């Protein structure tokens, strides 16, 4: 290591820390505001480092934004979507990676083309269709359009392609049928990708806003981002600590999941990459 290299590394590290601080600042300011006393906030502003603490903002936010109900709804909808997506994506990926059949190329093309169809822009027509079916303002309506995921099929297929043919042959020789082979051989080997895709699905649907905004009219079925948006529309106007606390509560599950499982996640992604 030359001196110049050391200077370079030091410079890069400094810039990296600066960028990281900018990336983290909104999260910090959210938490910092959430623990600040509510009085006089808008006249004096907040100091960078908290001096006084007030944790009652969280209970106020929880009650006023109806977050208890919303969090339960969010968990139900997110997990419901996840389970359905796994049930549809895993078999589809299996068929597209381990079987030879007429029309396989065409079907793969149909799946991949879905990746090009813009997600948000199709939500309004999807809602028009859902309304025709009479499923507006229902829990089922929140879940139904997401029963499968083109990106999920694609990711899992890439991973399953990497399952060696020798293992598939061995399973066949042992008398395992296609379904038994899927459940006891292919799924365990593909676990890293399945885990990575599951996290993606959870991130996407926990955070989704436009679709619940269109579908959920009654408070009983609202999801956390929607409840938060309504809470800030209501005349909470200047109760920033409660708003920040609500935002922190809505943000926390996904951020915690990401921090805990980051390593598995990266590994799962790496597996996908090798398969490509």
């Amino acid at each position, binding site marked *: 290591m030359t001196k110049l290299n050391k200077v370079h590394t030091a410079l890069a590290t400094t810039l990296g820390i600066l960028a990281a601080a900018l990336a983290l600042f*909104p999260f910090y300011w959210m938490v910092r505001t959430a623990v600040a006393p509510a009085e006089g906030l808008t006249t004096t502003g907040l100091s960078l480092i908290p001096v006084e603490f007030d944790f009652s903002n969280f209970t106020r936010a929880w009650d006023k934004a109806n977050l208890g109900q919303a969090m339960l709804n969010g968990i139900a909808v997110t997990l419901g979507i996840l389970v359905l997506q796994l049930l549809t994506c895993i078999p589809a990926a299996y068929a597209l990676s381990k079987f030879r059949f007429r029309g396989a190329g065409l079907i793969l093309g149909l799946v991949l*083309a879905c990746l090009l169809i813009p997600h948000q822009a199709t939500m*309004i027509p999807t809602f028009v269709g859902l309304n025709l079916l009479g499923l507006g303002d229902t829990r089922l309506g929140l879940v139904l359009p997401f029963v499968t995921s083109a990106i999920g099929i694609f990711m899992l297929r890439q991973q399953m392609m990497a399952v060696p043919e020798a293992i598939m042959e061995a399973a066949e020789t042992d008398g395992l049928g*296609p379904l038994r082979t899927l459940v006891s051989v292919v799924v365990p080997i593909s676990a890293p990708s399945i885990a990575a895709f599951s996290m993606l699905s959870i991130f996407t649907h926990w955070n989704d806003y436009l679709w619940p905004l269109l579908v959920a009219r009654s408070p009983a079925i609202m999801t956390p981002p929607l409840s938060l948006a309504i809470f800030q529309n209501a005349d909470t106007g200047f109760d920033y600590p409660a708003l920040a606390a609500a*935002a922190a509560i809505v943000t926390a599950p996904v951020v915690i999941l990401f921090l805990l499982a980051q390593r598995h996640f990266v590994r799962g992604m790496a597996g996908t990459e090798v398969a490509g």
Partner: protein
Amino acid sequence: MSLLTRSAAKVAAATPAPGGRTGKQAPTSGYSRPSLTPYLLLLPALAALLLFVYGPALLSLIGSFFVIPLSGGSWKYAGINNYLKVFADPLIHQAAWNTLVYSLATIIPSIVLGLLLALLMEKMGRGSWLAKTALILPMTANMVAMAVVFKWIFAFQGGFANQLLGIVGLAPVNWLDEADTSLFTVILLGLWRATSLCMLLFMAGLTTIPSSIHEATAVEGIRGFTKLRTVILPMLRPTVVFVTVLSITGAVQVFEIVNVMTKGGPLGSSETAMTAAHKVGFEYFRIGEASAISFILIALLLAVGIIGRPRRTKETP
């Protein structure tokens, strides 16, 4: 979405275009006897994709020719009236212009910053994983929550941004309630998020460059900007294309941050295509017109996706 696309980028770099074939694709053995099994395995997923992806895309086209009552009831054929109204609507004009400004102001800087940050992460010493984690976090953030936080940071009274202005002796700005600054403030949040996505995709792209390339360039004495321009960027080409396509579709479809921060206001100064479509459909109850806007957007973005779709690359071994 981010991390998902990240893997897609990597794979995209190495796989052929949709529908293409490689030798790898067809298993040499296994369940290759003709049977119903693969079709049955595919049935639920395909039915759902036809119903909830292709269906809505088609429905937006059909719906755009009708007057549609939101409460149900029969549709009334309206010919190209919805399109005529959309193209004549000043709200839509402003939304189209703002979407263009938002897109240009977020896409280009986020791609450049994302690439620079990804390169920076490779140069950082110990603790780079911490910086990486911090820089990926905006991708997992709930954008409604972040819009609420940004609204507070840019609040006229007591907001952190105005506190900073006060320190350097400038007058406070009413960021979100002035037509001159509302779109700019929304752009800042969009940029914060988009940069994180771009960095992630570039980081993934950089890991696909084999270390032998780095060794070879070191031996040749190719360094710094020359290396970036002549070696790294050409090798990252598939990633760059992918990032660009994703950035365009993401920016053009921006919705929640505008909806929460400004509602498109004041006076439409931060209205974007999706917030306008939502307003037309669900505040003015002109679903047919909203379908027309949706269809125009879908067609435009589909064209972007098709032009930039992953292709078989020569560099891939």
